[in-house]
């Protein structure tokens, strides 16, 4: 990991006016159900997927399209360090926003006189922390593939493809296609539902393994791609 890259990425993400506007809008909108129904607990906030995408979008692709990547790679930084640092920065940034959301929701609950379910808060934070980590890994892969904010487009295409594959599979009764579509959708939004662990249910091993395999695969491919990326005005690969 490279601490300078992590800090610079965090600053870059949170000084982007467009990003700030989107984050504030999403946070405020998520407070509305809490204000209307303060006794419903933290799960009413929903998950942080959209927040994670907002922070992660263009995490590598924008460095490529802006041309700043050359100067970074002229320094003693391995490309793997660069990818890991970007992933860590986006994850940390999302965690901070989730924590802020949680704190705001807690304040609303207190002000409205509703009890604050601390266990629910911990579960909410833990579930979304894992979702943020997983989403950042997926976006690291897509962002390493395309410049600028093309990773969002790629994500949308991937979801669309999974729907098409699933549809064709169910139409033709092709189990493999249906299963592939389901796995693809699960991989595009990697998460672990921790509720079962807190209610005496057995550990959902397939969910846990699927999550970590998706994260590892995305990061591994992102690093392999960056290791082979050529940086030059003359190269058509940039």
């Amino acid at each position, binding site marked *: 990991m490279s601490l300078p890259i992590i800090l610079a990425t965090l600053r870059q993400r949170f000084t982007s006016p467009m990003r700030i506007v989107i984050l504030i809008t999403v946070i405020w909108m998520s407070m509305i159900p809490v204000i209307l129904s303060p006794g419903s607990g933290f799960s009413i906030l929903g998950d942080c997927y959209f927040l994670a995408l907002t922070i992660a979008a263009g995490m590598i692709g924008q460095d490529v399209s802006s041309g700043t990547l050359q100067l970074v790679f002229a320094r003693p930084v391995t490309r793997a360090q660069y990818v890991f640092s970007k992933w860590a920065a986006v994850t940390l940034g999302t965690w901070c926003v989730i924590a802020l959301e949680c704190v705001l929701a807690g304040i609303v609950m207190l002000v409205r006189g509703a009890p604050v379910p601390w266990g629910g808060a911990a579960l909410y934070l833990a579930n979304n922390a894992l979702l943020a980590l997983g989403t950042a890994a997926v976006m690291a892969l897509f962002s390493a593939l395309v410049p600028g904010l093309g990773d969002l487009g790629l994500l949308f295409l991937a979801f669309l493809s999974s729907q098409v594959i699933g549809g064709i599979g169910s139409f033709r009764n092709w189990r493999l296609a249906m299963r592939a579509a389901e796995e693809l959708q699960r991989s595009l939004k990697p998460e672990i539902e921790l509720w*079962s662990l807190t209610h005496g249910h057995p550990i959902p*091993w397939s969910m846990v393994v699927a999550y970590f395999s998706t994260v590892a*695969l995305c990061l591994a491919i992102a690093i392999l791609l960056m290791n082979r990326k050529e940086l030059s005005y003359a190269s058509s690969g940039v």
Partner: protein
Amino acid sequence: MPPRASDPGEVRPPRARTGSTRRDPAILLAVTIVLLALRVALHVQENRAQPAVPPSAAVSDKVQWRSLESGVAEARTTGKPILYDFTADWCAPCRLMQREIFADAAAAADLERRFVPIRVLDRAREDGRNPSWVDSLQARYRVGAFPTLVVAQPYAGAPVIIEGYLGRDYTLDRIEDARRSLRVRTMMPALPDRGR
């Protein structure tokens, strides 16, 4: 770290790292391969445990319960929400609900018209453990009691969870309410939200 020297004959500073900046991450790749193999193995095991034809709790059950895979696929193709019936053979309210709703031809036909029905039978008491797909679904929808009906669309919208059985009319009304609220909420099917 000691400051860089300006003397041209100076050897490079101590603790300077060596190795290619494009080194492939061998450990990560190994971990990835192992996890992928495990994922495939667990998937195969899950598939073997999942019955092709789901069991019905009673012969008089008029609902054609789908298997999980075909049910989800059908829901995606037709756009109908899934109606999960989390039940157990030892559960008395479950048997009552089956007699009053699922064994009723008209109610069963109506449900099949509007939903894709999937029965999730808990066998933890009888067999000591459930198939992993049952555990996964129970974990996903936080099922802690029976009967629990869950109205959901695959990867879209927040599911509606109906715990317990409070009578035929009440249950059918709640199921219909759930279906309507899902139609309103599922405007962005690609971005699932599992808040309650």
